[in-house]
């Protein structure tokens, strides 16, 4: 009798150990010293701030490192102003072009298409509509930069994804595409 009971108990234990794995919960850890960070980590919760999260926006009136003040307001006047007066600070060389092309492929081509004709994959699949061809818009480097910062109508801002220099590299590349299209 004892043998049989033991057999059953062992089988049961084996099954329990085997079935512990639950894909929706993290696994056990063994002596997790120095596993959990003591400092705040990216996006963690924190009770130091009122809204309970660690990621905070910059304090009003301060400028984060690597950013710069953008003087043109988010309005139709600001747009027209930037179109004429905002000039590119970079001298667009081959290296810039390669980077601009790569970034354009990541951030713009899905809507604007690889050629800038407004036939990106989202347009072709009719998920996102109303993307114009660059050829149909009267745009300049300055106006593209302005649109990347604030967005325009149905297009959202891309300033969070691209740094200042990268925005200019993309703007130059987009103008290049426009030249191709108009030709």
């Amino acid at each position, binding site marked *: 009798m004892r043998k049989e009971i033991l057999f059953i108990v062992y089988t049961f234990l084996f099954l329990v150990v085997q079935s512990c794995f639950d894909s929706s919960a993290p*696994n*056990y850890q063994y002596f997790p010293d120095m596993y959990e960070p003591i400092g705040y980590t990216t996006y963690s919760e924190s009770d130091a701030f009122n809204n309970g999260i660690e990621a905070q926006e910059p304090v009003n009136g301060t400028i984060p490192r690597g950013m710069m003040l953008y003087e043109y307001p988010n309005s139709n006047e600001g747009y027209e102003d930037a179109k004429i007066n905002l000039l590119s600070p970079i001298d667009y060389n081959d290296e810039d072009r390669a980077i601009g092309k790569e970034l354009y492929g990541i951030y713009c081509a899905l809507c604007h298409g690889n050629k800038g004709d407004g036939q990106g994959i989202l347009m072709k699949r009719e*998920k996102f509509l109303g993307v114009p061809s660059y050829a149909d818009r009267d745009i300049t480097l300055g106006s593209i930069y302005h649109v990347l910062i604030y967005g325009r109508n*149905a297009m959202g801002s891309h300033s969070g994804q691209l740094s200042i220099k990268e925005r200019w590299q993309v703007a130059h590349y987009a103008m290049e595409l426009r030249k191709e299209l108009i030709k």
Partner: protein
Amino acid sequence: MNRIKIKYLKGVLIPLFFITSLSFNFLFSQEEQILTGKKLFNTHCAACHKVKKKAIGPAMRGVSEKYDREWLYSWIKNSASMIKSGDPQAVAIWEEYNRTAMNAFPQLSNVDIDNILAYADYIPPVPVVAQSLPVSSGGENTGNYNDLILIALVLVFLILTAMLILVKRTLIRIASASGVKIVSEKKPKDNIALSILSAFAKNQFLVISSVILLMLSSGYYVYAWMMQVGIDEGYMPVQPIHYSHKIHSGANKIECKYCHSSARVSKHSGIPSLNVCMNCHKNIAEYNGEEDLENGYDRDFYTNEIKKLYAAVGWDEDNQVYTGKTQPVKWVRIHNLPDHVYFNHAQHVEVANIECQKCHGPVEEMEIMYQYSPLTMGWCINCHRESNIDLKGNEYYKKIHEELSKKYGVEKLTVAQMGGLECGKCHY
């Protein structure tokens, strides 16, 4: 007219059409008109107008009845000049939409505009709903299913054994109670078994080797079990919004870095902030893509998930404005190295040019995100032993590479040979 009537019977046309566009019947068949109208609408107007719903501008269906044709021609070709000239209807709508400027479209002809309006008023026939039978077999859940069957079988087996033992015992009890003497046929057998056992017990070599064998095999299992402690391969938590990489990066081919943009420049890949989602989802309010009925994900389910996104960013869909009432989405973090390890995405993604998929698996096929790699030290080290360094356009590497390749006598250096196994590189 006869031809058209037949078409109407097919349910392709609606009566509204005849009235609004009879004059062009001889130029265009209606279908073509709708098709060209749709194309024009999608390229020029869809950014601000939706057919049925208010977007940045008003809904387009019904405008052809609201205004007369000439007014519409001149409005669409140049709305600003109409507002300037003080046309009462134009000023009214301009005020209603907070003086948002509509682009001028001098390039559109009257015919183009007629096509656009025809498309806007066109109500497609209700399609005959094809009954799609859910396919059984296959799918992600088979693994689980098999496990369940196995467990059930084992349970049944256990219960059967227990019952057999019980039955045997009661039978013996009944037999002895009714005075039947059970001639134990087992006795001689037992003796044989016993004698084998005792012979075995007396043979020390056999005993020791079988004990060692037992310990080795159980040790193997214990070791295997202990080695997976702390490894989260396959970890697949439920996220607050059912966000599907399969739909975004698989079907719609959105680049990983569009959302995980900091992978290019920093240690973290990061989870996109919700304003990145809204770059697209201001316009994509409902889901019209493929369904996954097997797992119970139909269009309504997906659309509902998009509404959750709207609730989180505080987007009022009906009025197309942000309400300012936001609540952060608490994504559950999946990949997480212990704090004593330093891993940098930019180094691997930008410098080494490694595809995300090499470490994160077939993300574009994941309906629900899970951890694909073990993320153990052995995993990192293995790859560092096998991967060569990409030297393109890097003067620093060029010099050090020449010196090191002379030292090791190889053509191409692996990460390990460049020092990628030094403890301090990963532990700090």
